[in-house]
């Protein structure tokens, strides 16, 4: 019994449940997104093992790497103008990006959900004030805010911590209204649901209602916003780096900064310094966006593609346990269709 429960809970997890109910093109999109995001996450975790050199290493036992060297067996993707190994820099960029996502999204999810629940459930003047503030923040450009933050936190002199926190906090401020609005709207809807009223009739306290009855129901769409925001976080970090507010190359590797340094190389035919960090940004953002978009489509029963009725049996490879109850009828449909 316990085992069965575990399995059903496991398969109800956001991404896994989505993968199970997807078919066709939607499944392909989701799988591509998952593979790209998976590569990103694995790279971020195992960067020290994968990268042949450190992110700020410009020489080894055999001497200096040399600047702007084309790809060679020693340096798979060549070296940069500063004499760093491009391949290693790209690999080391993944943990930096992942940290920014974690800081930004974790901070904003906590703040956004708590504010959303309180604002939606309690209503009144708290609600009105919070909504106005959220609206005001919407009008703020994320990049501008991030630049201000980076100056405030580290006086413009970015190191690893300063750079990540600047980008992370700027993004938090921008993302909080999004989580806040979604949670608040759901809370408002749920507040009128009979099961919340029933808890009220029973005499449950506000905190108990919010935490036990509203919270879990109100946060179902958040994985979706999370993936979409994650890609936005990467873009903002890269944008900051590109503008020169990034992280110093000696503190951490950062794709946007490398792109900026590669600007001048592009016109002189040195393609490898810009291409690989650029690709890393594009593929990571693409992967996260694909996961987010497919989850969005799969969440909505009207957008979700399904196998055509009566064909379940013919795709032997795809037949899952779910189809068992209707097997008897499927045979009949096949006969009818053939006729």
């Amino acid at each position: 019994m316990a085992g069965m429960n575990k399995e059903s809970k496991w398969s109800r997890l956001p991404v896994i449940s989505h993968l199970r109910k997807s078919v066709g093109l939607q499944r392909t999109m989701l799988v591509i997104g998952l593979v790209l995001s998976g590569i990103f996450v694995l790279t971020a975790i195992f960067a020290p093992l994968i990268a042949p050199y450190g992110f700020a290493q410009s020489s080894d036992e055999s001497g200096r790497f040399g600047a702007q060297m084309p790809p060679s067996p020693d340096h798979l993707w060549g070296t940069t103008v500063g004499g760093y190994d491009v391949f290693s820099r790209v690999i080391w960029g993944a943990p930096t990006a992942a940290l920014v996502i974690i800081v930004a999204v974790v901070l904003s999810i906590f703040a956004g959900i708590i504010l959303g629940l309180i604002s939606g459930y309690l209503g009144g003047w708290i609600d009105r004030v919070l909504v106005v503030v959220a609206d005001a923040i919407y009008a703020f450009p994320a990049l501008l805010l991030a630049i201000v933050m980076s100056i405030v936190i580290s006086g413009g002199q970015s190191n690893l911590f300063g750079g990540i926190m600047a980008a992370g906090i700027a993004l938090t401020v921008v993302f909080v209204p999004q989580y806040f609005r979604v949670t608040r709207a759901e809370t408002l809807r749920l507040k009128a649901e009979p099961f919340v009223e029933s808890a009220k009739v029973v005499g449950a306290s506000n905190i108990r209602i919010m935490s036990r009855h509203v919270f879990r129901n109100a946060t179902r769409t958040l994985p979706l916003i999370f993936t979409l925001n994650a890609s936005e976080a990467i873009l903002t970090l890269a944008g900051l780096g590109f503008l020169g507010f990034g992280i110093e190359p000696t503190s951490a590797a950062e794709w946007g900064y490398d792109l900026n340094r590669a600007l001048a190389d592009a016109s002189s035919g040195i393609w490898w310094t810009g291409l690989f960090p650029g690709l890393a940004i594009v593929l990571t953002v693409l992967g996260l966006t694909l996961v987010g978009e497919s989850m969005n489509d799969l969440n909505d029963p009207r957008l979700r593609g399904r196998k055509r009725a009566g064909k379940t049996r013919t795709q032997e490879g795809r037949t899952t346990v779910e189809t068992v109850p209707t097997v008897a009828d499927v045979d009949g449909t096949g006969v009818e269709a053939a006729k």
Partner: protein
Amino acid sequence: MTQIATPSNLGKPVLSIDHLKVTFATDGGDVPAVKDVSLDVGSGEVVAIVGESGSGKTVTAKTILGLLPETAVSSGAVVLNGNDVISVSAQKMRQIRGKDVAMVFQEPSTALNPVFTVGWQISEGIRAHGKVSKKEARARAIEALTKVGIPDPEHRVDYYPHQFSGGQKQRVVIAAALALNPGLIVADEPSTALDVTVQAEILQLLRDLRDQYGVSIVLITHNMGVVADLADRVVVMYQGDVVEEADATALFANPQQDYTKKLLAAVPHLGRNSASAGFAASPPKFGEVLVQAKNLEIEYPGRLGQPAFKAVDRVSFQISAGEVYGLVGESGSGKTTIGRCIAGLNRATGGSLKVFDYEMVGFKERTFKPLRKDIGFVFQDPAASFNPHLTIGECVAEPVAIHEKRSARDIRKRVLELMDAVQLPSNFIDRYPHELSGGQRQRASLARALSLNPKLLVADEPTSALDVSVQAKVLELFKEIQAEFGFAALFISHDLAVVDMLAHRVGVLLRGEFVEEGIGNQIMSDPQHPYTQRLVASLPVPDPALQAQRREAHRAMFSS
């Protein structure tokens, strides 16, 4: 496709369905909605398709108009004026819709587009079939509105849907269906969303249309009273199959199949099995007064600059321990507001409402909270009244967990007792609400309401979202449990027959005011106020002969 239609007794059939089969693709695999349905509809005939939810009656109706969603696959033949609807092209289907067959939907307020005038919406169909000038389309829209008995159609053709009442909106929907004089109208639960008195008018209208214009009608309904009132022939469906097909009189007098018999037996009859039988002669003694309302007023605040809306106006009644009090009224009568007010979900604004001697006018949540454990509440929609993330066991245990400090084992034991009391198997304790059927959920809802042995139970339309057969069982259970636990109850319903089965005393509400109050079966059998009389007379009974008599009496009563 071969045409195998058997000629019905009324000449060439307008519609003939032959071995229809519809399967839906869902997340849980294929679901057969209609397995094998064959039926004919003759010209000028009213054929009713009855069945419980999930029987495939609405899917059958939608197939006739080619309105199935993309996930559905259908086979067999649906022949309408020589065209097989299943295999025709989309363009041909568009020509057939409106001209040969039209549809009347369940909910008139959502079937009409709120931003266009009703005249525009009726002419839209007319102008979609051939070139018709604006002027002529308008004239024909007026004609259609006249047919369905909308007063002053020349002016009201330019009204917007919100300017009509619910019954009139349904008339407009019917007018739009009639605009092109189709041979067949498919009416999917045309009166379910309407109040009984309005329902009677709409059924009368459909009957007149059939008599005057010879329109055939396919009537989809779950209400046996409506079937008895209107149908010539009845097709009973169960889980996608036709169980029985017979003339209306024959079916009601002498049902052949077990399922049909069960279905008919489950329909509540007014005056049969009344809870208050014999009370007039010897009124029973109830205990102390639990709820006392004196000139109770409940207002909803109006928008800025608009006056407040008075939902309940000068209502007085009392509920004693052990008594079941029934509140009857149509939508908007304020019956639910009163129930919610007693449970502290709405605020009373005037007069006096005492619940366990606690004055609810100007109540404070903090001081009222200790009393909440003595009030149970059963909500209308069993699907929405449980937190989807908690198991049934956790949901039922919620009140106990809040009010009593007990160990987890103790709570579980209590939940099992309750589940037993409402006749739910004990292994349901670990299931999630969506894994239960509507009836089972409503039992669990009852278990939750009873978990703290409340002195008072408020039941707000607890059975109106359930099928008749399920409703009968839940009502039976309610009656048994009430007798066993002896709590007082406020039972709110729009269905007179249901209230009569359970309530000892009944109050009839009209627009927030009491029009009549007294012993249940006295009010039902001998209503004094004209509104109550109309309410009782409008309720269709599941017996065609008796219903025909009642209809005549009803008409005589209100035309004079």
